[in-house]
């Protein structure tokens, strides 16, 4: 038995431990949360928005809606910005500019989310409160912060998708008399579309899963929002907010919230994988 084989085995075991932690987490979440969903009934759990876990009401509809709205808001802000940025960097800028700007943008991903949340509370929330009304902590604040937070994901994956389009396509288009912008719009973007959709979906996953920044700026109220200035509570904030004090069925209900979140994120990741593979 050579040294190579030995190292191969060690690496295999390490890989296995990473996967087994995923399995452990999955099994644990479902074990802790499923009994409550079964007891409450999936319909009541997902379709009721009466959440008073210490009094026996477990309805997370408002949080599911809020999570989706916050994510949608983040996409409305983050995707146009991110895509525009990616197009400029991949198609219209000098190689040197790109080598400086791309890593700088990726630095955004390295800023801890609590810092985003802190900036939001100190700076964005008072602005919204003073100029737009409401308590400031709101759907809008959360969407803006998350929109910025998903930029690095959207930009870097979109750039990769755009640069993966063969130069031949661009040259062909330009040879036929198209301008550079026409080439980007009619040839490069359609060719890179599945990669760009993947970028959007992964950005979405980041937005759905973000917790700390959202807790700090979203206000965490339990109602269904009726305006973008209303405070909202997302699924992730619900878990993080109440886990410290929860016991018994309340704790199970938070794990059940985790199951719903888990399913949403699995669907997102799965669709990203399918779309990437189609390319």
């Amino acid at each position, binding site marked *: 038995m050579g040294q190579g084989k030995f190292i191969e085995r060690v690496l295999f075991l390490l890989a296995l431990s990473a996967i087994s932690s995923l399995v452990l987490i999955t099994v644990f979440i479902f074990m802790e949360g499923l009994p409550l969903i079964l007891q409450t009934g999936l319909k009541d759990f997902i379709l009721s928005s009466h959440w008073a876990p210490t009094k026996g009401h477990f309805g997370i509809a408002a949080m599911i809606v809020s999570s989706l709205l916050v994510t949608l808001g983040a996409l409305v802000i983050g995707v146009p910005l991110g895509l525009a940025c990616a197009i400029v960097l991949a198609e219209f800028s000098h190689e040197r500019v790109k080598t400086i700007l791309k890593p700088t943008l990726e630095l955004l991903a390295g800023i801890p989310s609590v810092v985003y949340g802190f900036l939001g509370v100190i700076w964005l929330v008072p602005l919204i409160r003073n100029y737009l009304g409401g308590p400031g902590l709101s759907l809008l604040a959360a969407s803006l912060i998350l929109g910025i937070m998903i930029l690095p994901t959207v930009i870097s994956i979109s750039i990769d998708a755009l640069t993966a389009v063969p130069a031949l396509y661009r040259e062909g288009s330009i040879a036929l008399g198209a301008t550079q912008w026409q080439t980007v719009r009619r040839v490069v973007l359609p060719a890179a579309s599945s990669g760009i959709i993947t970028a959007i979906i992964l950005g979405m996953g980041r937005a759905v899963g973000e917790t700390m920044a959202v807790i700090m700026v979203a206000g965490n109220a*339990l109602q269904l929002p009726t305006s973008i200035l209303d405070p909202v509570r997302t699924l992730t904030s619900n878990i993080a907010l109440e886990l410290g004090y929860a016991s018994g069925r309340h704790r199970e209900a938070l794990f059940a919230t985790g199951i719903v979140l888990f399913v949403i994120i699995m669907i997102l990741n799965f669709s990203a994988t399918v779309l990437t593979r189609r390319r």
Partner: protein
Amino acid sequence: MSNPAKEDKAKARLGRAGVWGFWGILTLMLVAGGCQFGASDAHHSLVIAGSTSVQPFAEKLAEIFMHQHPKALINVQGGGSSAGIYAARQGAADLGASSRELVAAEKDLVEIPIAYDGIAVIVHPSNPITDLTLEQLRRVFQGRLQDWGALGLKPHPIHLITREEGSGTREAFEHLVMGQAEITPAALVQDSNGSVRELVAGDPYSLGYISVGLVDGRVKAVAIDGISPTPENIKNRTYELVRRFLLVSRTPPAGLGKAFVEFILSPQGQNILEAEGLVGMK
């Protein structure tokens, strides 16, 4: 070179060793994780976990106690009342700190009341309101009274701030103010006394509640039914929003735990708590 059977056996042995190694590491990690909470030396170290309302006071007491007893090591952790009670029951903490009363299922634990704490209803210092009735407060938190105009001020929606479900402060507030009524889902929810205070200090239209001990110059505590949350009013119970701070444990505390509890209940310990804004048991 080597014969295949031998190689297979070696492979199998290595595979087994690897598997054992993996489980060994996992076990070690779990044990190490568990030890983080466990008291390593029963006589000289003590772990207190629980309510974030009690935590700053427990830290203060622990600091002074450790100064007097250089050999003692007291580790104060947060986590919340329920987590503290759970930790005390499991033995993960020597003492659990709770800012809510024990429920029926928890009554088998030993409870040691250490102080009274008032719950102050706070507004922005620029808010002219000085007094609310308990009834008004209840209606505001029920969501039936949503505008400062209805309380005689300039009309503007009230930005209501509450604590999260399961918080000891919220539970005490619900018990003392709300009765059977529920707090409106439209209220903002924050997960600590500190962040409620921070929000109220920054928003002229907000209304929230925090532990009296944590009220500072940046927020204004209003009187309830005409009675301000002063230490005298809390002590003689004329101020109505008062709760107990408890330490709980599985068995009556012994050793360092006993010494620390005695220190807290001694005149010196109680004076420290009163200096920090709580009201002593005596």
